[in-house]
């Protein structure tokens, strides 16, 4: 491809205005705090109270204005065990989610791109299609399946009634009443896997689909069995897709908030929930920005490690 340097200009401009400038604003919020304007009360001759500001001016009403000052208070607060533990848990949940997505999603991509699989594009579309239902609605729907009063539990109750043997077995297993599926970390992982699985399947599929068939045929001709040609050809070639899939699942998993609230019943708060609260009810944007910076640094470190694995954009992935 002939290089065309002009191409980069609009893109770089866009990246500057819509990524770097907003980011700079967040950094600014992260390193500052808001404090009330200092004032001293002065008693007036008529018995009322006036307020003197720092610049010497006197006002009749109590000053409510805030001013923004540089401060590391929020960084100190961020490093308290409460928040670090929350971060650790968020990372753990995100890693488990990513791993489950990879284990579930890779075979899907592999099967869809298999030579004897008909209409793979259609199936891929079917996999993405659920995302057209609103995220919140989908999660609510999972809740009505898994709740104590949900569909699974009512089926279980029906089964017990129909088959006393099952009832006895379950009782012996210590399950006497309904099973509590929700309100724990596993439920949160389930909800996240559900929402992010297509993000893992798509990039892997795209990459495997692109592998030159003749390579696989050549491998077969050279006597490689399917397992060997998978390990030698498909797997190394699919690495860029896998890495992209990992990124696309892991990153939103670290910052997610609705799923943990709904599926975890508020008992499995993640760092994303806390950040969300700062911009919402707690109304402390400065601390929210500080926490976001922390998460960004952690995720960037993760991506950096991943990039090293990637060996500069997968150019050096060798066959055989």
């Amino acid at each position, binding site marked *: 491809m002939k290089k065309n340097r002009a191409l980069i200009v609009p893109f770089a401009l866009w990246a500057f205005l819509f990524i770097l400038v907003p980011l700079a604003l967040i950094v600014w919020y992260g390193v500052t705090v808001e*404090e*009330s304007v200092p004032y001293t009360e002065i008693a007036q001759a008529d018995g009322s109270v006036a307020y003197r500001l720092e610049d010497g001016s006197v006002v009749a009403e109590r000053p*409510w204005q805030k001013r923004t000052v540089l401060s590391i208070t929020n960084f100190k*607060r961020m490093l308290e065990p*409460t*928040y670090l*533990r*929350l971060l650790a*848990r968020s990372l753990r949940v995100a890693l488990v989610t990513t791993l489950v997505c990879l284990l579930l999603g890779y075979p899907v991509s592999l099967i869809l791109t298999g030579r004897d699989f008909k209409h793979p594009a259609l199936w891929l579309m079917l996999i993405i299609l659920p995302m057209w239902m609103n995220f919140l609605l989908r999660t*609510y729907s999972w*809740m*009505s399946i898994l*709740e*104590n*009063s*949900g569909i699974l539990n009512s089926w279980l109750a029906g089964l017990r009634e129909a088959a006393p043997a099952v009832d006895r077995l379950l009782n012996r297993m210590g399950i006497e009443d309904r099973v*509590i599926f*929700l*309100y724990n970390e596993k439920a949160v992982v389930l909800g996240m896997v559900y929402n992010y699985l297509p993000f893992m399947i798509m990039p892997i599929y795209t990459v495997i689909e692109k592998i030159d068939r003749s390579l696989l045929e050549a491998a077969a001709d050279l006597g490689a069995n399917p397992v060997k040609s998978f390990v030698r050809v498909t797997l190394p070639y699919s690495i860029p897709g896998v890495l992209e899939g990992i990124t696309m699942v892991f990153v939103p998993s670290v910052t997610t908030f609705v799923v943990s*609230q*709904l599926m975890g*019943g*508020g*008992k499995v*708060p993640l760092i994303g929930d*806390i950040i969300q*609260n*700062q*911009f*919402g*009810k*707690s*109304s*402390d944007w400065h*601390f929210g920005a500080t926490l976001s910076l922390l998460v960004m640094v952690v995720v960037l470190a993760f991506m950096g490690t991943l990039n090293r694995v990637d060996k500069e954009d997968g150019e050096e992935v060798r066959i055989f």
Partner: protein
Amino acid sequence: MAKNNKKIVPIAIVCALIAVAAVAAFLLTRPSKEKETISVYNWGDYIDTACLDLFEQETGIEVIYEVFETNEDMYAKIAEGGSSYDVIIPSDYMVERMIEEQLLQKINWDNIPNIVNIDPRFLHEDYDPEAAYSVPYTWGTMGILYNTKRVTTPPTSWQTLLDPAYANDMLMLNSPRDTLGIALVMCGHDLNSTDPADLEDAKNLLLEQKPMVLAYVVDEVKDKMIAGEASVALVWSGDATFCMDESDDLDYVVPEEGSNIFYDSICIPANARNVSGAEKFIDFLCRADIAAMNYEYVGYAIPNTAAIELMGADEYNASPVNNPPQEVLDKCHVFKYLGDDTKLYDQIWTEIISDF
């Protein structure tokens, strides 16, 4: 490759169609310039939209209607100054904050003749002592919603939420201010206390309760209570009304120790563009038939005496949500705007829920 080439054509067509549709939609959704308009910012699903149509028919003023999810979101938008609204509906403590920060303007009562419909009992509350900036739109309390099939003796006290009989069978609110506020009341402290010792008591109480809590919920509480997911829950009265409409097994009580009472009030922001239009709209909302219509739709208790009479006071007052005993109501207080101390609540709440 040939296959891919073919795909470009339909995609190009789709893109073109899209662009046309988008431009059309854009032009259609833009308010027409000649018409007088007012811009209303309200909670989601908090008005019968038929009222908006009626207002347009009667006055010819077009309503640009937008919704928010929390007071803080609404505040951020107003304070940031990127947008301008003529009518907003914040809650009590937010009204207090916005008055203090000079974000609201005084309402000219001469232009709101229907203000006589509002029960004076609900005016001059702490958040707007002069009753100069706000008109109460709805009000409510916090209380216990319980399943009458499983809770045989009706609860009267907040102590129900500490009863081991309901272990893994109770729902709490995932909201720092509300839940800590109730915990403060349970400890016998002031609902608005910012004394660290008081808050420490409240925190310990909630930590002690935590192993018994099935979940800390927000809006999901309604579906869960209707489905019988839990036997008792800490709820806002508006949610209680919704649940009781859906299920006969549920009842609501405001415990005798007292509780939080809240108001959502109609206000005019300081930077409103069409003040006279806003006044007409507020007056319209205070009209008995319109307030009744909104009550039927929204389900929150209303301060509009004329509307209650119109609907039949007996039926309205039969609900424990609309009509808690006066002696309990006397012990209910509004949340005050806490300024920097809001952080303290948030910190404590985070410590409670992340204790694992």
